[in-house]
């Protein structure tokens, strides 16, 4: 089994090749890379596209992040880099009810001006949180009336999942 913490440290290397190698190794680690979830999300904002692509590939297969990672993922869901925000949001959605503390951040991502893919994934994530995301209902209702069909559909599905 690879040394996950060593690979996480390498993701911050000044050497691009070392970062690519670390991201690829974490991808090959599969679910064992779960402790690197937050570092992989940050790596989605790397300047090098191969680092980003390997980080994305690792995150696609990672499943839900460790519960301890949720607190660090919440601010990343509001990150200015759309790919970082998208993947932080995705991991929060995979966490389901355990990510209820992310409701305000995710609701803010629904509002106009945010990256469309991040807004859509935020609606999806709020639906995964379910009733614990009740505070997001006003933002979801505005999104459900949006002209973008995918965002509107996901917001409606989230409202149905939240209920009440």
């Amino acid at each position, binding site marked *: 089994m690879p040394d996950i913490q060593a690979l996480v440290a390498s993701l911050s290397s000044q050497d691009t090749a070392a970062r*690519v190698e670390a991201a*690829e190794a974490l*991808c*090959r680690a*599969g679910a064992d890379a779960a402790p690197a979830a937050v570092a992989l999300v940050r790596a*989605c904002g790397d300047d090098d*596209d*191969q680092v*980003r*692509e*390997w980080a*994305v*590939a690792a995150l*696609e*297969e990672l499943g839900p992040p460790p519960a301890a990672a949720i607190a660090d993922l919440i601010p990343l869901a509001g990150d200015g880099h*759309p*790919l970082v925000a*998208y993947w932080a949001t*995705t991991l929060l*959605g*995979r966490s389901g009810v355990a990510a209820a503390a992310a409701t305000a951040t995710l609701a803010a991502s629904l509002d106009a001006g945010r990256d*469309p*893919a991040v807004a*859509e994934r935020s609606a*999806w994530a709020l639906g995964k949180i379910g009733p614990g995301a009740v505070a997001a209902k006003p933002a979801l209702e505005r999104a459900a009336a949006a002209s973008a*069909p*995918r965002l509107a*559909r996901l917001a409606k599905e989230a409202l149905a999942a939240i209920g009440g």
Partner: protein
Amino acid sequence: MADTRDVAAPVSTRCARSLSVRLAALCLIAAAPRVAVAQAGPPAGPAAKPAGAILIASFNIQVFGESKMAKQQVVEVLTRVVRQFDIVAIQEVRAKSDEIIPAFVRAVNADGSRYHYVIGPRQGRTVSKEQYAFVYDTTRIEVDPSSVGVVPDPQNKLHRPPMRARFRTRITPAEMAFTFWLVDIHTDPDEVPQELEALTGVFQAMQTARPDEDDVILLGDLNAGPPEFKSFQRIPGVAWAVAGTTTNTRRSKTYDNLVFTRPATSEYLGGWGVLDLQATFGLPLEHALEVSDHNPVWGAFYPAEVRGAGLPPMAGAAPPVLR
């Protein structure tokens, strides 16, 4: 002369029991592709392929980009995989460069093979994009250039709308040749049920895309196995090649498949398999994962139209109109 040896046939090679005698015989011809591993010397010439079947494969080559192409041993495995098949539907070409697939096909052809490719546009909702590609053996298969495209997704239900292309075999007279749509897909792992539902509609749209084509083969990384194919069950006669085994390199999930309908695609011979990278190439898991986290999956098809012989030839046919 190259010193070669045969290694294990792909794991999970199966032939259905319910075939007619004629098709059963062809199924034997279409038995598992064999992989010759060169030990030394110049590359061997292209391997002979069965006359009674074409082998259609799907392969998610995880993050197929510059860093993977820079690994000679990985490219070597990938080229040997592709040469076993007549067509390979590839998922996950991820690169800024447009040279990945051209360079890869040159590597495939280094032994004298004559493969070519068609590739789709970069797709994805974020800045991380993927491309689909079909790599095919031009000595046995041809593509209708006017048929190549992305299936429209006006409701934005699919993260990466599938790439479709219509092919025809070249190893039988044109008027008898098996023609078929291939629809290449990589679903979003976080929206699998919704995307499978959308793909059910895609499949049905492709069935009526043109009146002279009843064969639709949807293939790719579905991020789901047969127990999750509930929406596909609404397609009359739906069938799939891979069942009861795993398709990922870790041998833990069934994600990849070929989906079609019967009796429309009666050309399906019942032969299918998962080319297990570890077993086939004798690779430890860690090295197999450098190639991909997915194994290729494949199905064998009769190279002539079993029903409806006399379909109009592809040349000059009207372009498909999707609804």
